[in-house]
């Protein structure tokens, strides 16, 4: 090799200096490099912030949905969560984690850290920030705002509404608008789709009737007796809890109360069946199904009974 030949050295040096002079080559400004670094860090920060929002919404969904009355709508908690989990935010979070790693790797000294280290730190940061945001209720707010602004975005409120405004499956959302002559047995109820229903309330507990009479938006669980005549047999009344002020404790209490009420209804139903058996079984040789209470046969009741 002739790499140390001084002629070659001076040739290259002279060629370069000549080229720099002739072509007016200038070093890029310091500001150019600083701006580029700044853009990369800003993009990283943005990815962490969006990741934190995704976490905030996911935390909101998971923490609130653990107290959901899922027996009323689904066979089990798993199938329920599959339907309500905000997969779009899980995808967004994954994407943001990737962008965070990509951006850090492209900073001046980002290459010194392994992908695993950057990924773990970005995830921890997003989780910490996301949990803090949700502590102040931002998860719910962002989800609700997006739901309001974007018709295609399924906010938790929309999902909850979709799950409970299902008359054919024995679930209604709305409020009592009037009592009837037979106040103790039938009230008039308007659901969120605008339909008016005659609600049979014979099997409701006093607390249910009181909640229904408050005129607030509530969720009704029961059975659609006649779609055309709009007759609905109510088995339980539960408050509409999809709003920011609802605390975890309230949700937990609501779930406890739901389970207790279902159990009470089941016991009452069992008692009724026993009485019917005594009165009718010997005389007729069987039970007349029409005389059985309706609530004994609704799906939610059966699911809770099967689980216990």
């Amino acid at each position, binding site marked *: *090799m002739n*790499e*140390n030949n001084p002629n*070659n*050295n001076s040739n*290259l*040096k002279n*060629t*370069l*200096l000549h*080229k*720099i*002079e002739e072509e007016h*080559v*200038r*070093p*890029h*400004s*310091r500001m*150019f*490099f600083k701006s580029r670094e700044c853009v990369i860090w800003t993009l990283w920060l943005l990815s962490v912030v969006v990741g934190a929002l995704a976490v905030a919404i996911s935390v909101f969904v998971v923490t609130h949905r653990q107290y959901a009355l899922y027996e009323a709508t689904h066979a089990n908690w798993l199938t329920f969560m599959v339907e309500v989990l905000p997969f779009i935010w899980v995808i967004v979070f994954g994407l943001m984690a990737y962008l965070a790693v990509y951006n850090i790797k492209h900073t*001046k*000294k980002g*290459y*010194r*850290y*392994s992908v695993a280290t950057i990924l773990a730190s970005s995830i921890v940061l997003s989780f910490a920030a996301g949990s803090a945001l949700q502590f102040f209720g931002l998860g719910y707010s962002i989800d609700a705002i997006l739901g309001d602004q974007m018709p295609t975005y399924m906010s938790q409120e929309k999902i909850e509404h979709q799950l409970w405004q299902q008359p054919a499956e024995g679930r209604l959302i709305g409020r009592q608008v009037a009592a009837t002559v037979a106040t103790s047995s039938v009230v008039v109820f308007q659901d969120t789709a605008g339909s008016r229903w005659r609600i049979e309330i014979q099997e409701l507990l006093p607390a249910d009737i009181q909640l229904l009479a408050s005129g607030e938006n509530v969720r009704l669980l029961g059975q659609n007796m006649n779609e055309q005549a709009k007759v609905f047999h109510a088995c339980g009344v539960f408050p509409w809890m999809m709003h920011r002020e609802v605390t975890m404790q309230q949700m937990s209490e609501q779930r406890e109360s739901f389970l207790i009420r279902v159990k009470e209804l089941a016991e009452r139903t069992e008692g009724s069946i026993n009485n019917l058996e005594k009165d009718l079984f010997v005389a007729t040789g069987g039970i007349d199904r029409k005389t059985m209470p309706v609530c004994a046969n609704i799906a939610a009741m059966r699911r809770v009974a099967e689980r216990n």
Partner: protein
Amino acid sequence: MDAASPQSLTDAEIVAKTLADKQFFGEIVDRYEAKLKRYVARLGVRNPEDQMDVLQDVFLKIYKNLNAFDSSLQFSSWIYRITHNEAISWYRKKNVRPEGHLIADSEELIGFLSAKEDTQDADFDKTINATEVNTALFKIDNKYREVIILRFFEHKEYDEISDILKIPIGSVGTLLHRGKKQLAGELNSEAIRM
């Protein structure tokens, strides 16, 4: 240029002076041309004309990016990184693979082969045939060859290799270990005593 002898200045001082007076850039060329030419050759750019083309691009890029030089790095690491990237770009532009080349002479190879940085590495026989090792070096994966060249032939420290190749320091050790293993596999059984 001012009266102070450029040879007595550090790389960082030369960079600062070059930003004020481009004539100082000649000193950078003087200091690094031979080293970088050898490095480019080791990376597989075999033809001397091609080597000069790559070097010219390298130095122009160094000049244009002088303000990007981070003084927390060694200047040599920074320019080796630029050289490495330019050599890779050159292959891509020419759509060729690195050509086999005499990476090292016998003396360097002996140094490399007797290096026992990892107790798990094989103890290479010092009488190994230099040509065979050179050939084998060009058969192993590029990512391993690059690290081996920098460590054993350019005599760079782990942190410098990390800065040149832009990889975590931990990965340097891993790549070296795997590279030597792959190299051992490439060498024929006569050349290596496990």
